[in-house]
């Protein structure tokens, strides 16, 4: 064992022991496993269905009872993606693309089928987000994953055809804009901002939850576009090696 290991150990062990004690102290104060004490959760479970006609109480919290928090989260995602883009996006993409054509016909075929199937699953997760488990965030990420499969199984060229900043940026704005617009719609109708001002509809159908479906689709568009922008930026740099200047 070298000196460096000894020094590392001398620093790490007391810190780890301290953290361990803190963790154990915290965990020992928790209620027993499986015993949920939150009043709020029980309350939501009781009132979500009669009040909002949504059979998925989680979505009712996300897009209604705590809709304002979700608005903040939308903008966190929006701002985070803008930050990544500003750090990574280059003026020109002069770097040469690596040859990455997919040569296996089997992979291309199965990939194409999978893209379609996963895309439909994503749409279903979004559309029925307030009826069954799912919602705008989950569905949006699935949609982005389906589009990413185009790159993984069909190659770089078909992916670049639509995964570009010009195609994706408007969708990002549209997603956040829809959310704010629905919130302002409530204000124009004379209710507080983001108040669920549309009729609750019929529980268990796509016409339920009032303005939740619109917030839901806005979130889905925002999340799918944000993820795809991230993939595009990172893949661009993965595919195009840095120019001689940047190598330093």
């Amino acid at each position: 064992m070298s000196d460096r290991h000894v020094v590392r150990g001398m620093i790490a062990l007391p810190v780890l022991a301290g953290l361990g004690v803190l963790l154990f102290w915290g965990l020992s104060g928790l209620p027993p496993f499986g015993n949920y004490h939150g009043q709020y959760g029980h309350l939501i479970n009781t009132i979500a269905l009669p009040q909002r006609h949504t059979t998925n109480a989680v979505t009712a919290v996300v897009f209604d009872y705590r809709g304002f928090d979700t608005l903040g989260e939308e903008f966190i995602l929006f701002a985070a993606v803008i930050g990544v883009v500003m750090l990574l996006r280059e003026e020109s993409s002069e770097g040469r693309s690596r040859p990455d054509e997919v040569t296996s016909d089997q992979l291309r075929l199965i990939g194409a089928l999978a893209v379609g199937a996963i895309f439909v699953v994503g749409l279903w997760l979004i559309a029925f987000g307030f009826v069954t488990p799912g919602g705008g965030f989950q569905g949006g990420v699935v949609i982005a994953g389906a589009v990413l499969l185009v790159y993984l199984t069909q190659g770089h060229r078909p992916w670049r055809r639509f995964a570009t900043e010009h195609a994706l940026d408007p969708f990002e704005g549209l997603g956040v804009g829809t959310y704010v617009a629905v919130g302002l719609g409530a204000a124009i109708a004379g209710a507080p901002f983001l108040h669920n001002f549309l009729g609750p509809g019929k529980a268990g159908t796509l016409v339920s939850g009032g303005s939740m479906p619109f917030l839901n689709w806005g979130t889905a568009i925002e999340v799918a576009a944000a993820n795809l922008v991230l993939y595009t930026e990172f893949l661009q740099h993965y595919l195009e090696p840095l120019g001689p200047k940047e190598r330093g």
Partner: protein
Amino acid sequence: MVHVPAALQALVLVLAALLATAVVLSRNTLRQIVVNGMYGLLLVIVFLVLQAPDVALSMLVVSTVAYPLIVLAAISRSRNGKLTDRDREE
């Protein structure tokens, strides 16, 4: 509510602890990313067993598709676009 046997809950939690340790102990970057994806997939099962399908759905795609890709691309980027021999071999 569906009744989930306590043994099943214990099993997935123990497996999660084992795979989490495996992630930390992986010294090879590429392998670590794959093991981390498997760990994420196991967390999906944990959420499912604990009857939190909404969280499971979020975790499913993020941990197995989005996160590995971003990490891989970021590592590649930080090493001038190429993975070193250490990443490829043990």
